[in-house]
């Protein structure tokens, strides 16, 4: 949008914002300017301060210093309600709605259509239906939100924010759980809103999407402003340099020759393993020192496969072997006992314990494995925590910090550390790079390779086909809850994976942003 003359005051103006948590300076004198009708990407590595900036602007955190102006008028939002009143609406990365209420109630909470003090339920449902129809969603809005998938919950959150007649719409990683088709719909709506003069702040780690949709880009690094540029005149390499502060190392390092891995010993194998209505019976061999990638669309059975392998879900048929011996995997406990580890996709709800410290989170699985009557001494805990904080470069390097205060990438590393501490033979990683940005991406990928070189067997799920191709020795492709193809060696490339996924003509909806 080119309709923003410099003479008019910008829609949202942030000047000299600083914010510290204890001794950690999360933001230092950051400026940010959003014009009416533009889509402005806010970029930076994990821990760069993007989330903190958003929370300060929306009044979730009080700021230590600085000014926030909307339309030239200074505002001091202290509570989320005040920010809403000032016209700032936010959709956070993790869905922050109420699963125990209906979809319609979630959309209209605290602003339901009323008559004589009574909520007009039918009117509310009709409007909810119409609102979601704009997003290409046709669902029963009277059903509980919690009964729908994360993707639908996310779209509902965005629909709510859009409908709050906001002047400023902040989208924090809105596309992380959407497939390509849904992203297109969202972008269409973002452009429409921008045309109406709404300013949109778009936080994302998908650079393709940033280039596709944004007019300008602001980059933060380590809590400081690096710069603000027009998207059109900023080459991608330059952008990455701004974000990382260094030349990006070539992430597509050559794979170890696949032939060598053929000879490796089998770590765990699954024959005709499956569960009716969950995932069709499959054969899977996981070898020491090998990365097996699971590729497929959202809902194709990738996570389901992982949960069966780990024992989080019981198979109703088939045979599992560990190091050649038949085993029963009926609970996560069995999985842990056989030396398996599992980092789930939903970090916030299924993985980390936000209130506990980094140290406590790291020793959790190891302590569970040892049993309660053999407690780890404080010194052992400190030792383990220090080792992994250093090894995985968890930042800030403070084992006593509650994990909830860490950025997404660092939380992911804590999860990894938790399982590594149990010295597993097989580690299952479900979307290890989701919600994590470029620098940490490369780092996690490097870690995956290194772990593998140490003899660990890895099963990795990812929607990022480029990534899977980079680190996998073999790739299993899933479609409609069944394993349909296994690629190895030279056959592993994005084109072949897409072809396997799309074999039944569903190619258009592929969710990889490759």
């Amino acid at each position: 949008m080119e309709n923003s003359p410099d003479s008019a005051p910008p829609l949202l103006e942030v000047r000299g914002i600083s914010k510290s948590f204890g001794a950690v300076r999360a933001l230092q004198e950051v400026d940010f300017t959003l014009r009416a009708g533009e889509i402005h990407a806010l970029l930076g590595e994990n821990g760069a301060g993007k989330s903190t900036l958003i929370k300060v602007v929306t009044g979730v955190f009080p700021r230590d210093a600085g000014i926030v102006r909307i339309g030239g008028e200074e505002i001091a939002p202290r509570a989320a309600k005040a920010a809403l009143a000032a016209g700032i609406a936010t959709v956070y990365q993790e869905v922050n709605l109420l699963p125990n209420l209906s979809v319609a109630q979630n959309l209209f909470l605290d602003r339901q259509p009323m008559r004589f003090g009574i909520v007009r339920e039918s009117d509310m449902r009709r409007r909810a239906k119409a609102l979601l129809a704009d997003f290409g969603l046709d669902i029963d809005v009277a059903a509980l939100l919690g009964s729908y998938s994360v993707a639908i919950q996310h779209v509902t959150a965005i629909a709510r924010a859009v409908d709050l007649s906001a002047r400023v719409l902040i989208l924090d990683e809105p596309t992380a759980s959407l497939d390509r088709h849904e992203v297109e719909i969202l972008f269409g709506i973002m452009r429409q809103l921008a045309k109406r003069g709404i300013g949109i702040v778009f936080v994302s780690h998908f650079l393709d999407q940033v280039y596709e949709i944004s007019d300008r880009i602001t980059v933060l690094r380590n809590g400081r402003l690096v710069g603000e540029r027009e998207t059109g005149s900023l080459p991608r390499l330059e952008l990455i340099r701004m974000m990382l502060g260094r030349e990006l190392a070539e992430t597509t390092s050559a794979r170890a020759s696949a032939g060598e891995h053929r000879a490796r010993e089998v770590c765990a194998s699954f024959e005709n393993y499956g569960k009716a209505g969950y995932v069709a019976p499959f054969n899977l061999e996981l070898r020491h020192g090998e990365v097996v990638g699971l590729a497929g669309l959202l809902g194709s059975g990738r996570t389901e496969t992982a949960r069966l392998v780990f024992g989080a879900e019981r198979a109703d048929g088939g045979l599992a072997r560990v190091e050649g011996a038949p085993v029963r995997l009926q609970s996560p406990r069995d999985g842990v006992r056989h030396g398996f580890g599992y980092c789930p996709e939903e970090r916030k709800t299924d993985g980390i314990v936000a209130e506990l410290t980094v140290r406590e989170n790291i020793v959790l699985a190891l302590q569970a494995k040892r049993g309660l009557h053999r407690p780890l001494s404080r010194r052992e805990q400190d030792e383990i925590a220090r080792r992994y904080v250093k090894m995985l470069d968890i930042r800030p390097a403070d084992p006593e910090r509650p994990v909830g205060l860490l950025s997404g990438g660092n939380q992911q590393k804590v999860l990894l550390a938790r399982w590594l501490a149990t010295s597993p033979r097989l580690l299952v990683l479900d979307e290890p790079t989701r919600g994590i940005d470029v620098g940490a991406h490369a780092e996690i990928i490097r870690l995956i390779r290194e772990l593998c070189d140490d003899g660990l067997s890895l099963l990795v799920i990812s929607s990022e086909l480029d990534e899977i191709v980079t680190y996998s020795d073999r790739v299993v492709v899933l479609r409609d809850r069944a394993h349909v193809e296994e690629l190895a060696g030279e056959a592993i490339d994005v084109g072949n994976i897409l072809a396997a996924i799309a074999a039944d003509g569903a190619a258009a909806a592929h969710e990889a942003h490759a």
Partner: protein
Amino acid sequence: MKGLPPVLITAIVLVAGFVLCAVQFPNIASTRVVGNLLTDNAFLGIVATGMTFVIISGGIDLSVGSVIGFTTVFVALAIDRWGMPPLVAFVAILALSAAFGAAMGAVIHVFDLPPFIVTLAGMFLARGASFLLSTESVPITAPVYSTVSDFALRMPGGGRLTAIAIIMLVIVIGGALLLHLTRFGANVYALGGSRAAASLMGVAVGKMTVKIYMLSSLLAGIAGIVFSFYTSAGYSLSAVGVELDTIAAVVIGGTLLTGGQGSVIGTFLGVLIQGLIQTYINFDGTLSSWWTKIATGVLLFAFIALQQGLVALARRPVRKSLGAAT
């Protein structure tokens, strides 16, 4: 909603229990017995309505029994010793109890304290205050009391729908409407779902907390007045342990103790189930009245187990994925 909603299960238990009792004692199936059941449990139904709001919002209110006790003593003294007109005494005590609840809600929100502890303190405070007023039972002789006690609507079959039973039914219906049809009600569920998310969505969490505990204490005050009509006396030891009967009724009624789900109608059915057990024991004549507690305990346990099962079921499936990516 899939499967059998908890409220329906409560209703089935009530009907089945009623039929069983009626088979053994045919006299139970009369409007006379039903009328008495409503009258005897009027105060419980009122206070349980308030408790339903509190528990759905994710809290608990342990002070209600003591508030009832305090109310009966205050009303008795105000009318019979201090010579207050009954209506003035009622308004005064309702204002007092509402303020008491609001204060507890404010403490819970401002200091971010667990409702269990704050209302436990409230429970001791209110009970202690009622002992301070009087340690003896104070009879109420005001004419309005005999008038109200004598008032009743005749039901077909000779049953009497007393004034206090009518008050209870009105409050239950009013509470159900408030919970299910208003913005306030939706916010109560929102708080029980997640305080953080509700706050981010713009719900005034602090105000809601104050209002919810205020409502609970206000209804406890009304329950206290009703209790004083029922016994025509004020006594500082009345309604000891009623907060636990109340919580039991709410949970048996299908409200999730962790908040976010439940209904006033379910609570009403839960109250009736407790009343039915009591009635059965009265009819039997040989059973000790403590069997009421044992039966309630068994039922409570069964319902909590049932809810856990339902919650586990609800967590499992994902209804539908998006668009083409199914």
